[in-house]
């Protein structure tokens, strides 16, 4: 009785395993023999196959014009990206040049800040922080441009969503 239960449990497990990830030939042969002898497990296997067949053949109706509407939106966005590409490239170029110039001119700018600090009498820490901030100006500028761009993109996306 107990060995029968173990056999059923093994069979049910193999039925699922065969459909989910496959089973080795030895298990397959054992299962085949068991299913020939056991009506309960054979019925379980049939129900599993029937459920999977129904899932595989289940259909859903597509909304009318879904593909063409999507193609239209994608083309619009592609055009927008193409138009933005040169501006983005110019921004990167400007940032790179600005950094290069910053590196090259760093000793002079440092001297300038030092001189200004001495002339105005501000503490050393203040003009050193000022020098650091001077370096972050190109990055801040780039971030501002990118933020402006993304906010414009957001507005446009809302407009497109309302229209679709």
């Amino acid at each position: 009785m107990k060995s029968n239960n173990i056999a059923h449990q093994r069979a049910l497990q193999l039925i699922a395993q065969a459909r989910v990830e496959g089973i080795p030939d030895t298990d397959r042969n054992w299962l085949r023999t068991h299913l020939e002898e056991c009506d309960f497990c054979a019925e379980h296997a049939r129900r599993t196959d029937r459920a999977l067949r129904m899932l595989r053949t289940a259909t859903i109706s597509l909304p009318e014009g879904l593909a063409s509407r999507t193609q239209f939106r994608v083309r619009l966005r592609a055009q927008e990206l193409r138009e933005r590409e040169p501006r983005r490239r110019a921004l990167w170029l400007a940032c790179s040049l600005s950094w290069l110039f910053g590196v090259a001119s760093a000793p002079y700018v440092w001297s300038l800040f030092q001189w200004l600090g001495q002339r105005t009498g501000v503490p050393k820490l203040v003009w050193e922080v000022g020098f650091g901030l001077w370096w972050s100006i190109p990055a801040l500028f780039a971030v501002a441009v990118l933020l402006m761009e993304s906010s414009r993109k957001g507005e446009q996306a809302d407009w497109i969503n309302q229209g679709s």
Partner: protein
Amino acid sequence: MPGLTLFFSTLMADETRTIARGLQRRDPDLLDRLIEQYQYRLFRYLVYITGNKERAEDFFQETWIRVLERGHQYNGKSKFEAWLFAIARNLVIDWQRSKKAQSLDTLTDPEQEHPLQLANENEPSPLRQVLSHETEENVQASLQKIPAIYREVLVLRFQEELQIDEMAGVLSIPLSTVKSRLYRGLEALRGALQGGAG
């Protein structure tokens, strides 16, 4: 037979490489073709995971926009549909997070009181409304009884016929989790169909 397998795998690898190159160029003709080619499968997947036709339609469009924008990230080494479904799924999860600050998994956890999109149990759900037009109404009505977390793996495995490792990539979960969800999903499917058809 191995020769034929090799032939088809080479053909598929060529196809995915062509898609990857086209996506890097943002080739509009390629995108048009892909939208046509995958519209049914993507839409079906989205309907199953969102449970709502209108929402699935919005996500369908957003997915293709994302494909255009992030096309350069597709390397052509995996199946295109696996990458496509991963993008679609991430969009749905982002949307869910922005709404409820939770992941799709927690929202659709069968242990939770309200699985995804079941707003009013007395009225037919949007998924049921969509599917009730179909000839296999019974099957579909039964399918919606299955928690979305299991419905999703069943769809990916038995409708989309993705391999388990590909599914792990799409869902960003370990192989063992994919398998356990599949086993539980299969059990739930059999139970739901037995109940629905009976």
